[in-house]
């Protein structure tokens, strides 16, 4: 009997399809508590692999006998070892998760959000491991990518499959939780790279400044991307209204939370902007707009079909962060008792400005862990 492998894509589908799985996570207790594969239908056991070097007898009682067991670690080496030990103990349905949490952090799952007019389409790329959401808008053979993550091949391969050319790449703001793939994607495809200039003061490369009320057309059928200046998470944060139907909110507004204003060290300065954006600017928009954020924090924010999207009007009634009438209370909520900041967020900001150029392996390490861009 040998150990079977389970791919990260298998795991992603189990998460999105609400399937059951027993996950034996053999990373350290700290790593597990900080970040793991979340699913309401998974059962979990965390025992560090180094506590199992002398044998797995001690944990056999805690493992199910009639259910598949997936063993996961940081990169896939230790899970293989532990899975082999479990097979030697007589368990048959045991898998080692290929690539471990590192692969989980990098996996993207494209989901179609909607058709657009004249044959256009809107896709959401769900990065389950980090909660990052990015988008592809297609129309008339062209594509725009919004808030691309580091794994740019996912977009170029998908565009090729759809037979569209990436012509415009946008970032809603200067990201602090993950390394943007925008610049690289624009370089490899020859697309225009748009950034809000207020966030790009320190960037060391050329970009196309995106200003409030700018319109960018995608394809001959005129899918319209309308920039809406919406500061608060960062000073330059800009939302996009696509085709008068979809509101891409970046890190300003999420489904069950709102953006935090402190990741560039300016919580006190930006809290007023954040409130103005959420309570005045967004209030003036149609309730019927579908909000498409740049992140999700918990699996409950996913819809049945695996997308993360909700009517703006629904968020105004249900999202706690949009329902704090007292300004002082709002200020306290977004500046005090904030969750820990994302791993390596200062280095990530500098990478996104082009000031430092860490190699591939370093970039992976910097992105380990959850995104933590929100306050609830």
């Amino acid at each position, binding site marked *: 009997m040998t150990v079977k492998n389970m791919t990260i894509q298998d795991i992603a589908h189990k998460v999105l399809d609400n399937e059951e799985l027993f996950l034996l996570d053999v990373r*350290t207790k700290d*790593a597990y508590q900080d970040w793991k594969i979340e699913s309401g239908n998974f059962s979990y056991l965390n025992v560090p692999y180094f506590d199992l070097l002398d044998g797995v007898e001690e944990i056999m009682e805690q493992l199910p006998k009639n259910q598949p067991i997936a063993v996961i670690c940081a990169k896939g*080496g230790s899970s293989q070892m532990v899975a082999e030990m479990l097979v030697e103990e007589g368990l048959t349905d045991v898998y080692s998760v290929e690539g471990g949490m590192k692969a989980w952090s990098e996996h993207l799952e494209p989901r179609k959000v909607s058709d657009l007019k004249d044959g256009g389409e809107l896709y959401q790329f769900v990065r389950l491991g980090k909660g990052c959401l990015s988008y592809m808008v297609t129309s008339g053979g062209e594509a725009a990518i919004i808030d691309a993550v580091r794994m740019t091949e996912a977009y170029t391969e998908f565009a090729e499959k759809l037979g569209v050319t990436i012509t415009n790449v946008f970032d809603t703001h200067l990201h602090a939780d993950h390394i943007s793939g925008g610049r690289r994607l624009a370089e490899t495809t020859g697309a225009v790279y748009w950034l809000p200039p207020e966030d790009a003061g320190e960037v060391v490369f050329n970009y196309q400044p995106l200003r409030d009320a700018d319109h960018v057309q995608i394809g001959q059928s005129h899918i319209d991307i309308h920039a809406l200046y919406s500061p608060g998470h960062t000073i330059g944060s800009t939302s996009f209204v696509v085709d008068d139907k979809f509101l891409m909110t970046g890190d300003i507004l999420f489904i069950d939370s709102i953006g935090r204003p402190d990741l560039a060290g300016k919580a006190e300065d930006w809290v007023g902007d954040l409130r103005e954006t959420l309570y005045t600017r967004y209030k003036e928009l149609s309730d019927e707009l579908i909000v498409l954020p740049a992140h999700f924090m918990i699996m409950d924010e996913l819809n049945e079909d695996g997308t993360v999207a909700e009517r703006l009007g629904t968020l105004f009634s249900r999202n706690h962060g949009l329902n704090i009438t007292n300004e002082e209370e709002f200020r306290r909520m977004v500046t005090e008792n904030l969750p820990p900041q994302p791993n390596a967020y200062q280095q990530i900001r500098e990478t996104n400005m082009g000031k430092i150029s860490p190699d591939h392996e370093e970039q992976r390490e910097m992105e380990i862990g959850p995104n933590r861009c929100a306050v609830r």
Partner: protein
Amino acid sequence: MNAAKVLDAKGLACPMPIVKTKKAMKDVEAGEVLEIHATDKGAKSDLTAWAKSGGHELLKHEEEDGLFKFWIQKGE
């Protein structure tokens, strides 16, 4: 720092640095120090947690040009 033994775990990927460390620790007396050289980035958090769970003490660690050095004192 005086190490009773030096373990070369360079170029080894997880879980081998810990597997070798555990084995090497058997050749060291309580109170003595094992010095470990590794290149795996995960070694730091794993060795720290392993030493703690095994009752050993991570006295010191250094990093230079991708080489990690650890000094672990064996527990009683």
